[in-house]
């Protein structure tokens, strides 16, 4: 599994799709929201935590199709499936790499983008913390969705469509946690719920994704 993780990280960096890309997309998205909504600071500040979470979800979405599709197209996935590596571990490795290249950079970048949206003081830690706890679930759910649609050429839009409903609980608890934090209240309960979702997905979805992959490879 280590070999797969390091290979995929190497590929992500070489293809110019490394750590910075997701962050840059996030930045642009945040400014798009302001362009769309208008420059009023108070308005932006009220929607800031929500928009940051929606932005995180979108930059995840846009990179989901890289999880399996490339390996599918060049035949590597078939070869991996007949190799000694269990497919469950393959899925885990892929989700991990996706998180390292997409989710984790967002955690660090979110406070800066919070500033663009006039986020209030205590919100900075809350948004970063909620993303740290929540984004692994996004990557894992995304890997499952990517496994479902791997046989479909350029299924990007279909994939987003399939995955978005699964993101709803994570989004709701994540955004609630961040919003509560920004208001200076106690967000422990949301934190617990969010970590519950993350742990659950990591424990169960690799098996579902591996099963789906096997079916798609037929």
């Amino acid at each position, binding site marked *: 599994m280590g070999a797969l993780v390091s290979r995929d990280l190497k590929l992500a960096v070489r293809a110019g799709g490394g750590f910075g890309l997701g962050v840059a997309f996030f930045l642009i998205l945040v400014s798009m929201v302001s362009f769309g909504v208008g420059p009023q600071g108070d308005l932006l500040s009220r929607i800031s935590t929500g928009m940051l979470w929606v932005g995180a979800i979108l930059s995840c979405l846009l990179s989901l199709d890289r999880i399996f599709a490339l390996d599918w197209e*060049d035949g590597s996935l078939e070869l991996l499936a007949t190799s*000694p590596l269990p497919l469950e571990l393959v899925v885990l490795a892929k989700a991990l790499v996706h998180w390292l290249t997409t989710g984790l950079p967002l955690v660090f970048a979110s406070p800066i983008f919070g500033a663009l949206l006039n986020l209030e003081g205590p919100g900075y830690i809350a948004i970063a913390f909620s993303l740290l706890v929540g984004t692994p679930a996004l990557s894992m759910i995304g890997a499952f969705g990517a496994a479902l649609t791997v046989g479909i050429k350029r299924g990007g839009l279909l994939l987003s469509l399939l995955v978005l409903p699964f993101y709803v609980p994570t989004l709701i608890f994540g955004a609630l946690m961040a919003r509560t934090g920004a208001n200076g209240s106690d967000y422990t309960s949301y934190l617990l719920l969010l970590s519950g979702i993350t742990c659950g997905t990591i424990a169960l979805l690799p098996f579902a994704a591996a099963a789906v992959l096997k079916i798609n490879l037929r």
Partner: protein
Amino acid sequence: MSLNVSDLSISRGGVKVLEGMGFTTIPGQAVIFRGPNGIGKTTLLRTLAGLQPVLGGRIEVDPENLVYSGHLDGLKAMLSVGENLAFWASVYGNRDITEAVKAFELNKLLERLAGTLSAGQKRRTSLARFPVSGRSIWIADEPTVSLDSKAANMFKRCVEQHLELGGMAIIATHVDIGLPAAIEIDLSLHKPGVEKMRKIHEV
């Protein structure tokens, strides 16, 4: 160690493509499948490799012994030839790729990105995965496509050496690979509905 197939039928896209297949391979033996386009060679090899379910009959083999290579090369364009091979070596729990590199004369290409190779060079790299895997049953789908005669010969010698060491090879091909001792199976005999006698190919 060996591969044992009896009364196998397989289907592709909901249509039965082959039936009544049976053969056995023992160490040192190669099997070559022949037959016109669309008869079911690729489907059969994928079934043997465990990628597709069987429709009927049995395949007795330890999947731990298999290594499969299909119509696609399975190379990462942004990794060098050496990195590609090293990755597969470590997936199969090996460290050493020097033998495979020697067998397919890849030493000069080792640093090149796989994406910048010509069709035949890619194919050569992808075939080098067989020795790299260290597994005993090689399953190859039209391995010599795009290869020039010299490279085709490298593959032939590599297979021969593998057979000598007690390995097995199962190959589907349209051209002559040059393994005179191999069992050749004409898949047209196993087309569903073909009335001809279906003798079970035995070793």
